[in-house]
């Protein structure tokens, strides 16, 4: 990592954009980290969504970044603000873990799966290719997006690996 790079933490229910030497980082359980990266302009973004949809119908107006339904359009708009349009970037997705099978909470059991589904549906509808997926299972994941070349450092279950595929 170069000395100039700036680490930008993407919190839970948060969206951040970065470019050039920025490093965007987030930690995931059942939530999903959606990584968009434009290799030509070296612009990237991570959205950390908690749930696919707002179960209350009221919270999303106040906190749109929590839910896939409302966060993903904002994510696309933020890329556009950085001068990167659909067709210039692809998507990588991480997270969506679920607990060991049990029947104790349908809600907790299904969060991960539903999150994965909504991201796929949105990307398909908007013709944004999903080129890498590291989802499901029960592991926690920390991902770091290096905006200089788009590589992602993935940490999970005691392992670390770089993923270099950006298109």
């Amino acid at each position, binding site marked *: 990592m170069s000395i100039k790079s700036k680490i930008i933490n993407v*919190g*839970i*229910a*948060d969206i951040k954009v970065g470019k050039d030497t920025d490093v965007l980082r*987030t*930690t*995931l*359980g*059942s*939530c999903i980290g959606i990584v968009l990266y434009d290799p030509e302009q070296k612009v990237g973004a991570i959205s*950390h969504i*908690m*749930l696919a949809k*707002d*179960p*209350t119908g009221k*919270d999303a107006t106040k*906190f749109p970044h*929590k839910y896939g339904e409302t966060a993903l359009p904002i994510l696309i708009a933020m890329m556009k603000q950085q001068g990167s349009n659909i067709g210039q970037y692809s998507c990588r997705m991480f*997270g969506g*873990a*679920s*607990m*060991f099978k*049990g029947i*104790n*909470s*349908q*809600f*907790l059991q299904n*969060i991960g799966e539903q999150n994965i589904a909504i991201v796929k549906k949105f990307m398909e509808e908007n013709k944004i290719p999903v080129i890498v997926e590291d989802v499901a*299972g*029960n*592991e*926690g994941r*920390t991902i770091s997006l290096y905006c200089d070349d788009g590589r992602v450092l993935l*940490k*999970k*279950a*005691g*392992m670390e690996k770089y993923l270099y595929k950006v298109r």
Partner: protein
Amino acid sequence: MLKSKVDEVLQDVNKLPAISSVVSKVLEKLQKPDVNIADLAQEISKDPAITANVIKLSNSAYYRASKPIRTVQEALMTLGIKTVKEIVLLTAAKGILSQDLNSYQLEAAQLWTSSLLVAELSSKIVQHKKLKIDKDLAFTSGLLCSVGKIVLAQFFSPVMMQIKADLKDNQEPFPTLEKKYFGYTHMEVSENLLKRWNFPQELTDVVANYLTPENSKNNPILTSVVHIASILIVVSGIGIDIGGESVPISPFALSQTGVTEADIETYFVHIPDLQAGLADLLNV
């Protein structure tokens, strides 16, 4: 088996995380029913760092004091003994829980944030479900339930490869692997530490059983509350460690607390809002 090495560390005071003698004395005084405020203020004032934190946090938005607080005595008079005790413990906990635990895949900031969130969510669940439990006690027990990881984290290196291999097809809660390799789960180590620090029994019982609430002898309801809070925070990804989401939510905990599926959903969705409200405490 590294148990003998862990035992060695557990028996050596110099190798264990410590809390200051002032914190121990304050806790001791607070366990007596007839605690004297002036006496307590004098004890707290012996430690400049704790004094500064008590005054700073007493004036923070989180505690919403009715007037500006300039001394420990004023903090005790205005916020009450229980709240000041919470602040003293928070300061002590921050000192211990602010370190990277690389083997657990936890960075210091995550460990502290998740400890605070488990504390805050535990306290909120107690209030929301109108349980007959002191919400400050819920906060403190939630705050300390990861403390044993600090000791075990030192022992991963020689067995890391085996642990990784075990995790590949793991179908057990992670504490089962802790027990297998270190002879102790992090809950057992937490219990050991809290006993050593003279914490009240009701707290040690919670940290000892928070992932297996059905084993709680003293306080199954509070242990169940902390169990649910800790699971939800892990699912949110804050402070999720090498164990991932390997501990399922306990039906016993749900029945003890009366927490419903709808409650779980509500608590989960509001985790970011809880975190926003903790800004003052995150930067203790």
